[in-house]
């Protein structure tokens, strides 16, 4: 049975609102590398790679829209971003061979995730409804996404490493590693850490919105 049109319209509006927030940009940017962020070093490297993938996808999606059709845009952007990530992978392999081995398939995978998050953030659910609203995402938004994703992965990597191996800046906290808290080294724990970061970003955005609303009310009075 078809759903009530109002329910579907409400779902679409909710999705549109969700994908156009800084929290979505941060989460979509950080999720692809979350599994690989198992220590501070790994978090920093995969965070940097994710940031490059997001910025690359933002630049490439603008460039390819000049010479591609509506349907081929994603495929061409994906291919070009994959090429960029292969080159970035070569750089990581030369500079940090051990971390390159540990990151495995997550390094090239960030290209697909970068393109997907930029594509979704640009078009949102409107892409599915027939509207062509590409270009809503500014380059500043992409930079914000890249920086917040990098910071989130460094944070998650640090705490995942701390809870799993007990390593803090070269020192070992044995008690933590031997306790059940080491479950945070699993994907479930990483997702909880990212949820914590998302709550923080969302709270900051809400506070800014409330402050702006209060300022505008004060100005009117």
């Amino acid at each position, binding site marked *: 049975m078809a759903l009530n049109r109002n329910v579907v319209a409400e779902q679409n509006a909710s999705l549109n609102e969700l994908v156009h927030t800084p929290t979505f940009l941060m989460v979509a940017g950080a999720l*692809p590398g979350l599994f690989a962020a198992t220590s501070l070093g790994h978090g920093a490297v995969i965070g940097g790679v994710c940031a490059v993938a997001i910025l690359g996808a933002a630049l490439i999606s603008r460039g390819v829209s000049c010479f591609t059709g509506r*349907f081929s845009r994603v495929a061409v952007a994906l291919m070009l971003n994959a090429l960029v990530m292969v080159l970035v992978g070569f750089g990581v392999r030369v500079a940090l061979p051990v971390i390159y081995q540990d990151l495995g398939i997550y390094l090239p995978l960030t290209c697909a995730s970068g393109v997907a998050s930029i594509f979704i953030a640009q078009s949102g659910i409107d892409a599915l409804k027939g509207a062509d609203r590409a270009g809503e995402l500014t380059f500043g938004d992409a930079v914000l996404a890249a920086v917040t994703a990098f910071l989130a992965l460094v944070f998650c990597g640090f705490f995942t490493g701390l809870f799993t191996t007990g390593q803090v800046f070269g020192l070992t906290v044995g008690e933590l590693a031997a306790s059940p808290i080491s479950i945070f080294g699993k994907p479930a724990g990483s*997702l909880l850490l990212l*949820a914590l970061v998302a709550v923080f970003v969302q709270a900051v955005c809400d506070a800014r919105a409330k402050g702006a609303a209060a300022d505008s009310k004060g100005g009117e009075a």
Partner: protein
Amino acid sequence: MAFINALFTSMLDNNLVFCQLIAMVTVILAAKRSQDGVCFGTMLGCATAAAGAFGALVYAGFLAPWGVGYLAPVVYAILGAAVAFVGGAVAASRKGAADRGLALRLVALLAANAALMGAALANGVAFDSATATADVLFGNALGSGLGVFLAVVLFTSIRARIDDRLVPHAMRGLPIALVTASLMAMAFTCVAGIAGGLFV
């Protein structure tokens, strides 16, 4: 037996979404439209399985023998898009022009999904280990597809039962979705090593 073992291991023990956190963004977004969960999960699962199977063939037939395995991500990007668009075009061939356009737009989203590339890359790694047979590679591909389907349908059905009005304001939206995903990931972690091990 190797095929069934690889299938269950990829589907449950190494589930692409909840155990490897690949393509989680799409799953979270799809959960917002609970009525489309099964349809979207089926499309994504089929595309993932097909991309994994074709990826294994391309890697074993061309990339590995030619020594250009480093180009695998670029090839898989084209392969994933081709699989998604051909599948979408076939599925939408009997529909009207408006529905066909809508379906192809959805397919564009599928083409950019990391699960398609993830299944193919995982098969490439398995092939490089030199212990993988054709049974294992195709079991991995099919298991990855089934795992993605399972993840989308389960997450959508659970997310639909969470009333956002009862969630604290700071947790609404993505944070509560991530907490839900975390609990589901914990559930998948509990079966790690059991499902695949049954068929050794």
